[in-house]
Structures are given as C-alpha cells and as structure tokens.
C-alpha cells in the first residue's frame, strides 16, 4: 500500500502539473480538494483520466468521486479494491 501511495503522489503531481509540490509535501490523509491541496472540478476529471489510463479502472458511478478522491490513501484503497 505505501508503495502505491508513493507512486500515486508522483502521478498526481505529474497529471495535475503541480510543479510547486514534491511528493513528500502531500500527506497520505491530507484532503485533496478545497481546504487541502485546493484542487477543483477539472482536477477531478484529470484524476478520473489518471485512474483509467494508468490503472485501467473506470469510475463506475461519478457520484463516488468525492469519496474516492478525498485523499491519496482513499484513491489507493479504491485502486487496490478494483484493480483487475
């Protein structure tokens, strides 16, 4: 799990072009949206693309987005549960 979380942080920085951040700047349980990293709705779409392109996982229900993309750990949990 910790390896996946570390990889995800690098991929999120790359996909969202968060050049001002380093992987260690993102906490495993830090909220990604609004008060946390301040990501927005376009970033949510980018994360959906990331899941599909890198892990082959489609977010079946878009309403699950806020729960799945809450923190890096929740994304890692979702990947672990749904990876084929």
């Amino acid at each position: 799990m910790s390896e996946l979380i570390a990889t995800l942080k690098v991929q999120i920085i790359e996909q969202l072009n968060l050049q001002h951040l380093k992987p260690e700047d993102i906490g495993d349980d830090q909220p990604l949206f609004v008060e946390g990293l301040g990501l927005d709705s376009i970033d949510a779409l980018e994360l959906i693309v990331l899941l599909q392109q890198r892990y082959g996982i489609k977010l079946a229900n878009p309403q699950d987005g806020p729960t799945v993309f809450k923190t890096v750990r929740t994304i890692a949990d979702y990947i672990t549960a749904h990876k084929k």
Partner: protein
Amino acid sequence: MALFINGIGCISPQRTFDNSEFLAEVKEYSTNRLTCVDADYTKFFDAGSIRRMGRLMKYGTAAGMIAIRDAGIEVPGAISTGTALGLPEVSQRFLKSLIEVDETIVSPTTFIQSTHNTVSSNIALLCKCFSHNNTFSHKGFSFESALTDAQLLVLENMDNILVGAYDEVSDYKYAAMKKTKELRSEPSSNLDVYGEKGNGVIAGEGAAFFVLAKEKTENTYGMFVSNKAFYKPESTEEMRNHILSFLKTNNSSLEDIDVVISGISGAKETDAIRIDLNKNLFATQTIVAYKHLCGEYMTSSAFAFWLASKMMKAQQIPDAVILENKNRSPKNILLYNSHKHNHSLMLFKAC
C-alpha cells in the same frame, strides 16, 4: 475610423512586457527560432491557474492583462483577437494523447485549451468582460481582421476595445518551416538577418494587445488611423499604387509620412517588393525593421503595431530597429507588413 491607442501590452522574444522600457537592451539569438521572454506570470494569475496553462496561454493572456492595466480600465468594452494557428503545442499534445489512448479518455485540460479562442476567453474570464468576444484566424490577415472588427464595434457605439494577436512557434511549425526551406538553413544572429549573406526567415512568436478608444487619455500612445489588407500583389508597381491610394483615402500623402515600418524578413524572394519600395518609393522616410527582434510569424504585424505605439509616445526610434535613417521624427508612421501573400498597410499618427 481613427482610434486612440490608450493601452498596450506585448510579450515577445525581446524584453517588452515592461511598458516603462523601450528596447533598452536588445536580446541577440544565435538560432533561427526565437521564443518569448517570459514575464513574471504570478503577477497576473494565481498558482492554481498557472499550472494548467500552456506557454502561449500564459504569455497571451498576460499581454492582454498588461494592456488593460496600462489603459487604466477594469473591463474592456469588447475583445477582438487574431491568431493564425491558435495554441498548436497544447492542441498537438491533446491529439497525440487521443491517439495513444485509442480515442478513449483524454486530459480535459489540453482539450479546453485546444481552441483558437482560448486566450481571449481567458482574458474575458479574468477581467469579467461578458461582451463581444471574437477571435479571427485568417493566416497573415488575422490581426488585421481583429482591427477591422474593433473599428466596426466603435461605429456601433462600443468603446475601449481590447484588440490583440498571438501565435507561437511550436515544434511542429518549426519542423514544417525547416522542411519547406522557409528558415535560414544555418543558425545565425537575429540581428544580421537582413544582410547579403543567407536567405530565409527566423521563426518567431509573440503576443501584443492594445486598448483602442474613441477618446484620448493621459496615457494615449498615438492614433491608429486605418488599415487595409491586400492578397498577393503581383508587382512593386501594384503595391506602390495600393500604398498611394491607401494614403490618399486617409487624407494623407507620401510626403506626410516620416517613418515606414517595413515587414522585411530576410527571405530574399518575398522581400523583393519591400526592398524595391524602400529604395524607390520611401526615399525620404526613415525605414524601420522589426522581424529581427520578434522573428517571422503570421501575426507579427501586432508586434509592429506595438513598435509604432512606443515610437509615437516616446518620439524616439531605437537604434536597434533603424534600417535607413533619414532623421525623421515618428509623427506619421506607415506600416507595411506581409507574410507570404498576405500584405497589409496600417497608418498611425502621433498625438
């Protein structure tokens, strides 16, 4: 319809984003590809916005915001822009990723930024201008079309029109220019592009914006009197007649013109008409060139518009642009630009 130039903003391969300077130090390149000198974009956008913007989106939008701030207005009456190629770097990235993922799912950011009107839309969002917003894409007539649009908007009683143009030299465009042998075959100094040695242009890019208005202000740079475009003039004689007719239509004559801004580019074949006119028609005018500073691109006439504005306000012609000096003050300026078969004239008058 004559309009006052009340604000300007330019980001180019020279240090032009600071309006308090005027080509104090000219940047020399030993390459045939000139790219923009970036401004500090954090002064214009928050960190969240910057990370999503492609290169042209950053310098195009910033140039527009510089012009708006320079004019001392909050919201322009309308926005009219010209771009020949839109945002090719981002568009190509989007198309490439579309192929890579077999047309399934692609990044929304590159998709959003792939349209030609991305820059003018972004400016509108930033300054909350919800009025007319149009982007013209007609190769070498793109900026000229935006200017005509602004003149028509003022006739419809709009004011403080933000007019501008932007283009970038993408890897693809640069490779295409190389392949068609438009470029100088070997890297050379940009300051030596008009000499006898070598043939071909240096590729360039940039963004320049202007606030055009009915009324003069304390910040007015000068007056944009008129413009006219011509497609594929066949000879020097034909272009000579166009110039004289254009001046006459605007109640002016050749004798009134002090400075000619020439769109000479370094490509011998396409420069032939301009060199001929510089020698034989503009015998008493100071002749100024600019494509050694910004490179050749389809909306480079916007850079020349910026140069005319600065010269009119400063009443000074920087040594770096003088091709032939006749010691004339830049009161009445004629710009003659061309990109391949697209030729255009613009007339300016100092206030």
